């Protein structure tokens, strides 16, 4: 610092460039700053030399700002970055990223399970082997959705409970994200099923139905009872409609049943909308 003081106080001499640059870009000590400013007040030439440096300052400060912003960029997971690139709005992506329950271990395990059921369907001699796929895939979809929307699985639930966004919107957002991912996984598995085309989509409507029913139930009760009831009803229905004479040994793939399940899905969605204040009101009870 002492070297800068040499030029001060001498009107014939001008400030050296280093000092001017330091003044323009770095915070100087108060004495140095006063000296420079005092000189620049008097000396037009130094003023002229200073002004372009200050112009650089704008670029530099924007550069600093960009660096600063980058260091404060929230750490985004791979999935979130993909979602952003697909055009999902940033706050929606962040709300989904805060889902605690579904990590890579869940998706890996679910993928493995789907793979096993598809293998069983393809290579087993029994004609009712595809039933395992059609039974498990909708159940996985419902379990995934309830794991991200359930209060007991989210340690940060209380912040949602007092947020003006409202519990319902966040629940819908997270449920939609997980449902889409589940459907993609199921579709990938269904490619390997040894059934003709219309039957390989037979899991789609049941998946949506179970998700809708489970969400509607969870607006009025805790996550575990809701999913238990849903899965118990699903298992009971599958057992009751087991019939070896039908494709995949179940009534599930018949067009009449699929239409019926679509109707139940719509009812479930309707119930969910009507009961949506349950997500706000029940809070932390």
């Amino acid at each position: 610092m002492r070297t800068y003081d040499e030029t001060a106080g001498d009107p014939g001499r001008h400030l050296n460039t280093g000092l001017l640059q330091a003044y323009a870009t770095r915070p100087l000590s108060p004495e140095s700053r006063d000296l420079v400013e005092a000189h620049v007040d008097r000396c037009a030439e130094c003023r002229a030399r200073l002004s372009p440096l200050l112009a650089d300052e704008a670029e530099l400060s924007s550069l600093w700002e960009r660096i600063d912003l980058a260091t404060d960029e929230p750490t985004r997971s791979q999935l979130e970055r993909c979602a952003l690139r697909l055009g999902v709005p940033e706050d929606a992506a962040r709300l989904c990223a805060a889902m605690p329950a579904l990590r890579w271990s869940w998706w890996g395990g679910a993928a493995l399970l789907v793979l096993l059921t598809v293998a069983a369907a393809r290579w087993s001699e029994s004609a009712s082997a595809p039933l395992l796929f059609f039974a498990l895939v909708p159940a996985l979809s419902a379990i995934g959705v309830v794991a991200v929307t359930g209060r007991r699985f989210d340690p940060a639930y209380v912040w949602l409970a007092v947020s003006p966004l409202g519990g319902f919107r966040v629940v819908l957002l997270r449920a939609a994200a997980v449902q889409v991912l589940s459907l993609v996984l199921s579709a990938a598995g269904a490619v390997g099923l040894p059934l003709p085309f219309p039957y390989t989509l037979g899991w789609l409507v049941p998946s949506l139905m179970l998700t809708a029913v489970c969400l509607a139930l969870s607006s009025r009760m805790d996550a575990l009872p809701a999913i238990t009831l849903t899965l118990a009803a699903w298992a009971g229905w599958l057992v009751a409609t087991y019939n070896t004479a039908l494709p995949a040994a179940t009534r599930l793939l018949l067009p009449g049943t699929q239409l019926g399940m679509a109707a139940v899905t719509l009812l479930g969605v309707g119930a969910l909308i009507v009961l949506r204040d349950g997500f706000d009101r029940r809070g932390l009870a």
Partner: protein
Amino acid sequence: MESEERSAAQQVGLDRVGVRYGRRTALREVSLSLGRGVTGLLGPNGAGKTTLLRTLATASTPDTGTLSVLGLDPLTPTGRQALRRRLGYLPQNPGLPSHFTAYDFIDYVGILKEISDRQARRTEARRVLAEVGLTADRGRRIRKLSGGMRQRVGLAAAIVGDPELLILDEPTVGLDPEQRLRFRELIAGLGEGRTVLLSTHQTEDVAALCHKVVVLDHGTVRFQGTPAELALLARGRVWSSGERAPGALAAWRTGVGTFRNIGVPPTGASLVEPTIEDGYLLLLDGDGDGDRNGDGDGDRTPADAA
């Protein structure tokens, strides 16, 4: 005193609010009126403090009674939503997602509080983190933060968005004395022009911060007034002696070797200036029969008084 309260605009009013969990009654016909400034909530564990704060924060709905918070009715959906835009809440043992960094979490809370502009959110996040002193640690993951730091993250999340009403449930748990001082400065600053309601077990916090104190016990309000008035309740009932006085309601050994006793002082005892803690203890054991929880048996021991 009461006219002063009434003339200051009432910010929070409860009228005979009751909350039950199954067969247990957490709040019994609580009626309160709070104005601007910092109010402290004292009470033993299980008194209903957390329930009261949760009800005010719209995290749960009361079974009976009416509420008016900042002029809004939290029992209606629109009122609830409007209220949530203007309040900040720090729960007891705040749950934080462990894989987030501190900054990420505050950013997330910013989204939850409807700050959709990215730049504004970033500025706000950095502001609140600076207020609680976590600027250097904002990039660390929450699971790697110490307990006190996590508490400060929760505090920062509560003050995002500059809320008019701040509800803090045991905010100084886990903070060391220096951090607690800093917290008091922060709250005192916030208390000017805002309504702050905080519950605590530290009577020094109450003494230092609060304009008003409310004592809850078994779901009912036992006292509403200034801290000085609470201390005054014990005037003439606190004395010091060389050994544990036999007729005292509560007695404990102080650091300097003497005993501090609360109760009916014997003649000639050396009285001492009462503190808030003395008033609080006396209030909770006010009828003098040593029966603190009203179940009919004397359960007073020196340990009970602590």
